[in-house]
């Protein structure tokens, strides 16, 4: 078999975004009818690799990639997703791209409908051809038949359960006669257990018909159940390419997170007699994509508590729920005082502060100056930077005090800008993040939530942000809850790390524990 030309060969693929290397020398092959499981932490480079394979525009706009992709032994370079479709690659994305008011059949064959000639089209051209409905039904039935589940081809998408929408997407790819390789990006994330099992069955039957499948998921047992091979990626490189029968959940986890285990840090401090400053009980948060189901956690005064976990498991929901940005329920006590949920103002009044993961959407006034961005919450919540006239009847903005505080934080956090009056949208991502921190610091909170503080910023800014947080914690005694997808980052600066899985706390470990034990917690209750 070794002399058979593989269907897909990826050879030495490299990619960087603005000097930031995200893929480093990726090599693997996939033969006809093979099922390959692709796993890795968030940010390991899986989606970038798939984007390259599918010819997404973003790759070309950022300078293309290095290395070769071969299909049936021939080198290809897709300029658009249409080229990739032409070459027989199909992709099912995590988000549905279906028209809600159309039936499954119409969606499956959209823009590829079989046509019938009629009188008008003979005169006015092909655009007036009639749809051949009976042929359409036959084709969609055949595509659905390739899967081992049955969905109603005549049902409109909007009235389908979410699992059937997913199957419709897959059927659309299967209906393309030239399909050779199907990429499934976390297809089971939205499915119930039964539906997921059915999907795995259909993957097997597709493979039996000679279609190769790349299956991306966080549910490792599914990989083990259906794939022939597992490719594990970490930090933009393939760290392991193993046969599925040689792997188990623990091994894969270790490959995913296991870096060179760092020597135990000495500065981790969890005093046994420290008091609990915040206790969260039975918290649920209705945050789309990051739902929190039932979280109980106690935060010790003066610590940095890390919250880790895979994307979509609910770690982001915790700070957003407590701070009242998404609808939430349960009880939160801070300093023995109950904190009302669903009210950002009350939280801020209790000296809590929040640096949101959505910098541009929630964190910044993009069209305003740095001065406004940094001083605004402190001005509104604590009446700082205001001059009072007429016995407090009029509170006037104190431009001078605002400039002073902005200058101070620009120096302290090394924010690169032309002046304090520069617009926030003109800064780079890393500097914007520093502005978000400055905004929170200016509130002088007792407790700070920091959500994904290093997402999408370069290495230099990253270490500066982390050390600023650490300094803020150690010198001012501010308790920090830091949420991050990057486990290593949490292990670098936190005292304890809680792992969220399936909307619940899967466990809390000291930061000095091995990566492996965190990895196991991450996948323990994935839903």
């Amino acid at each position, binding site marked *: 078999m070794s002399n058979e030309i593989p269907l897909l060969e990826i050879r030495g693929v490299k990619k960087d975004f603005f000097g930031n290397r995200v893929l480093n020398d990726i090599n693997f092959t996939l033969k006809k009818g093979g099922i390959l499981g692709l796993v890795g932490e968030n940010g390991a480079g899986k989606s970038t690799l798939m984007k390259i394979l599918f010819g997404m525009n973003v790759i070309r706009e950022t300078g293309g990639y290095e290395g070769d992709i071969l299909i049936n032994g021939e080198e290809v370079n897709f300029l658009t997703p249409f080229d990739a479709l032409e070459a027989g690659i199909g992709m099912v994305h995590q988000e549905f791209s279906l028209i809600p008011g159309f039936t499954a059949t119409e969606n499956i064959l959209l823009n590829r409908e079989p046509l019938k000639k009629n009188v008008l089209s003979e005169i006015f051209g092909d655009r007036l051809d009639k749809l051949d409905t009976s042929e359409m039904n036959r084709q969609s039935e055949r595509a659905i038949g390739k899967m081992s589940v049955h969905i109603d081809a005549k049902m409109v998408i909007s009235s389908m359960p979410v699992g059937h929408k997913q199957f419709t997407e897959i059927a659309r790819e299967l209906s393309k006669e030239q399909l050779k390789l199907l990429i499934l990006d976390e297809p089971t994330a939205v499915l119930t257990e039964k539906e997921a099992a059915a999907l795995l069955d259909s993957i097997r039957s597709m493979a039996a018909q000679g279609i190769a499948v790349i299956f991306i998921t966080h549910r490792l047992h599914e990989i083990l159940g259906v794939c022939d091979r597992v490719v594990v990626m970490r930090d933009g490189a393939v760290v392991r390419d193993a046969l599925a029968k040689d792997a188990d959940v623990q091994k894969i986890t270790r490959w995913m997170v296991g870096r060179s285990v760092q020597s135990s840090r000495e500065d981790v401090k969890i005093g046994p007699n420290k008091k609990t400053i915040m206790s969260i009980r039975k918290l649920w948060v209705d945050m789309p994509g990051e739902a929190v189901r039932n979280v109980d956690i106690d935060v010790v005064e003066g610590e940095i508590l890390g919250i880790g976990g895979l994307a979509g498991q609910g770690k982001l929901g915790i700070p957003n729920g407590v*701070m009242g*940005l998404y609808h939430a329920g349960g009880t939160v006590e801070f300093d023995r005082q109950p904190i009302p949920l669903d009210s*950002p*103002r009350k*939280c*801020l*009044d209790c000296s809590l502060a*929040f640096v*949101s993961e*959505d910098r541009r*959407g*929630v*964190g*910044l*006034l*993009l*069209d*305003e100056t740095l001065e*406004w961005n940094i001083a*605004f*919450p402190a*001005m*509104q*919540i604590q*009446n700082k930077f*205001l001059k009072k006239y007429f016995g407090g009847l*009029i*509170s*006037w*903005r104190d431009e001078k005090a605002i400039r002073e505080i902005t200058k101070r934080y620009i120096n302290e956090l090394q924010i690169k800008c032309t002046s304090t009056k520069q617009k926030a949208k003109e800064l780079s991502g890393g500097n914007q993040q520093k502005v978000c921190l400055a905004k929170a610091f200016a509130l002088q909170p007792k407790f700070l939530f920091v959500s994904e503080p290093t997402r999408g910023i370069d290495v230099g800014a990253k270490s500066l942000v982390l050390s600023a947080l650490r300094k803020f914690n150690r010198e001012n005694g501010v308790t920090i809850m830091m949420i991050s997808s990057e486990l290593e980052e949490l292990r670098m600066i936190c005292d304890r790390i809680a792992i969220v899985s399936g909307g619940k706390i899967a466990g809390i470990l000291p930061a000095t524990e091995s990566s492996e034990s965190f990895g196991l917690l991450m996948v323990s209750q994935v839903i």
Partner: protein
Amino acid sequence: MDKTGNEATIGINTKFLEFIRGFGLPRFIIAGFLLILFIMAPFVGADFATQITNTINRFSWNAVMVLAMVPMVHSGCGLNFGLPLGIISGLLGATLSIEFGFTGATSFVMAAAIATPFALLLGGGYGWLLNKIKGGEMMIATYVGFSSVSLMCMMWLLLPYRSPTMVWGMAGKGLRTTISLEGFYDKVLANFLRINIGNLSIPVGSLLFFATLAFLMWSFLHTKTGTAMTAVGSNPVFARASGINVDKMRALSVLMSTWLSAIGILVYEQGFGFIQLYMGPFFMALPAVSAILIGGASVNKASIANVVIGTFLFQGLVTMTPTVMNSMIHMDMSEVIRVVVSNGMILYALTRKTEAKT
């Protein structure tokens, strides 16, 4: 040498383009057009001083209504196409003040006083409505304005006004379409401290009144509440995360805008000398909207300077075109140009809105 010459031209070209971009192309064209009109005026036999007087006069009539655009732009509710709603409050104040028998300057003060509760009431309801339909404010505002005008068309006939200066002569009931303000508050502001030099006449009182309101607005935008309002317009999610009650700020801005337009129509009437009822308010919103846009405001940013510059440019255009163009081509072009400019400006601003967002 040729090369350096080329480079110099390129340098000047880019500088010129940058200047235009900063100043705004439409504003540049309109300012240039107005300048040409001013230069041509003496040649076609129009008296320069009279032209200036007319322009300043029209500025003083309209400026307050343009100022009424500012709060809603700041809070992110967009341009107040619902201006007629505030104007109706002003008209109710004006007619009731006359009905109750006030005359002279007192009638102006009473008109403003009576208009205020109406403006607060209507503005409150309008603000509540706009909070229900975030994202579609400007479209809804347009229809609120239009439908309120139509409703009032019936009300002006039905309301039991009795004052003989206002009702139809034959029937003795129902208000007339145009009511003269002679003996009431005709030119009360304009004649206060009026300066007359030859043909030049400056309505200092009206300008001072506008300046006072503009100063109050400028001050408000520098207070804590004003800052919060601007932040709500800039990024409502940021404002909410900073503990601001977004709906309250928006409602406040609508109230302010409605009240200012009520006062604005009273200032307009005292300068014009007549109250125009029925379809009168219908055509008030577009000139005010386009004036502030010509002044350089966008759908979510506006300053007092935008109000002053925009009102001057727009009203200057409206005043100058009839005299200059008509004597040149013997045809009434002014209305055509006014309509083209005002609607074109709004169209331009709305296309720019999406551009600013990305």
